[in-house]
């Protein structure tokens, strides 16, 4: 919910500190909360302090399982290091390393404002009921068919993808494409909690593909996005979505 009980407790207050895990809709939300609590300007974030508080917060909130929060934590730590680098005070070419973070926070804050507006609009609409009784539809000849060009094109792509293409064999040695394999695996795990190794591999089983997929799996496992299991020694590998990730 956008209109929710804002966690008002001060971080680091010690034992008895309880915050709903779903209180924050993401690392940017948590970051904005910390800035608000400390009454700090987004345009001038004391990175060192905020980075420490962020790390402390995700530890206390039990969010340290979530890749999205860890990703932000590592960015903050990197920023903290960059801010500590010595530089000359008259250095005109200096770019504030915080600029990108500031931009993202302002952008996110704006989206939050729109989200709150949308939430209120939907609540106003929800207070008005449509007619509850729906008369049974008349028995009539079926109306003209709806055929959508985009749907058609997607079907065409599915069909073409299913055709074993000899063209692909002419392709000269490709570098490993871990990014694409990562996207494919993440896409599959969005749909199902568990997939098999062969599914993760995709349609084509070239050496390049196998290696890319393997590297992607190991990287994703390291980041806590998924877990790799085997029921028995030498049995097929199962790839499980890490259920400790928060639902979005």
């Amino acid at each position, binding site marked *: 919910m956008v209109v929710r009980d804002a966690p008002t407790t001060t971080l680091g207050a010690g034992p008895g500190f309880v915050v709903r895990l779903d209180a924050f809709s993401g690392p940017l939300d948590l970051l904005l909360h910390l800035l608000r609590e400390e009454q700090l300007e987004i345009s001038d974030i004391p990175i060192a302090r905020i980075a420490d508080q962020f790390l402390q917060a995700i530890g206390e909130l039990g969010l340290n399982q979530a890749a999205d929060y860890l990703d932000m934590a590592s960015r903050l730590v990197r920023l903290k290091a960059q801010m500590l680098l010595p530089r000359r005070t008259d250095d005109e070419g200096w770019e504030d390393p915080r600029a990108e973070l500031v931009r993202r926070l302002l952008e996110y804050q704006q989206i939050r404002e729109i989200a709150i507006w949308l939430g209120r609009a939907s609540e106003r609409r929800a207070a008005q009921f449509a007619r509850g*009784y729906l*008369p049974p539809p008349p028995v009539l000849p079926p*109306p003209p068919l709806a*055929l959508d060009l985009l*749907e058609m094109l997607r079907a065409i792509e599915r069909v073409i993808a299913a055709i074993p293409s000899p063209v692909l064999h002419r392709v000269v040695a490709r570098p490993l494409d871990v990014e694409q394999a990562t996207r494919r695996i993440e896409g599959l795990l969005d749909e199902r909690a568990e997939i098999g190794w062969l599914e993760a591999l995709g349609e084509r089983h070239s050496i390049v593909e196998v290696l890319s997929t393997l590297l992607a799996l190991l990287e994703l496992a390291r980041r806590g996005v998924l877990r790799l299991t085997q029921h028995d020694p030498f049995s097929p590998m199962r790839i499980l979505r890490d259920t400790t990730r928060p639902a979005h």
Partner: protein
Amino acid sequence: MTPLARLIEAALFSAARPLTVEELGALDPDATTADVRVALEQVREHYDFEQHGIELVELAGGHQILTRAVHAAAIERAQFSVRAPKLTAAALETLAVIAYRQPVGRAEIEEIRGVSAGGVLRSLQERGLIEVVGRSEALGRPLLYGTAAAFLELLGLRDLADLPRADELTIALRPHHPEPEGADDAAAYVEAES
């Protein structure tokens, strides 16, 4: 309308079924059964007197607002309640194969899609989206299918050239290599031609 009549009208409108006088009483703890009956009568008379397109009817022991029967024919004709049906994924994919490979036989469609295509082909033909455009020279002389005029009309295309070319799609289309057509069907047609 009185406040209670307004509330009762809103409740009857939002409920999915007829509501009894007792049920309607739950809307307002201060309203007696008699109050509810008076309000119901007010709503009914208002609909009749002001010549609304709806009426308050008593049925199944309760009360419900319904559209007047006199409007039924016009509303049915306008078909508001029916959404246009959509093609299944199987039908779309079969149509895709035919659009890009026409003229194409059933065996080739089945080879590409990996499933039998008889039912889908029949229903596409019934809907006028595909038609038989000839016979293959292959053994058994199987029927060849192509898209019909309705296919382009539904997609809003002028002609088949408006479909994206293969190289515009994510994966390049295999060049058409004519395989012995209808090999699977062959046994059934051994005697057909020679």
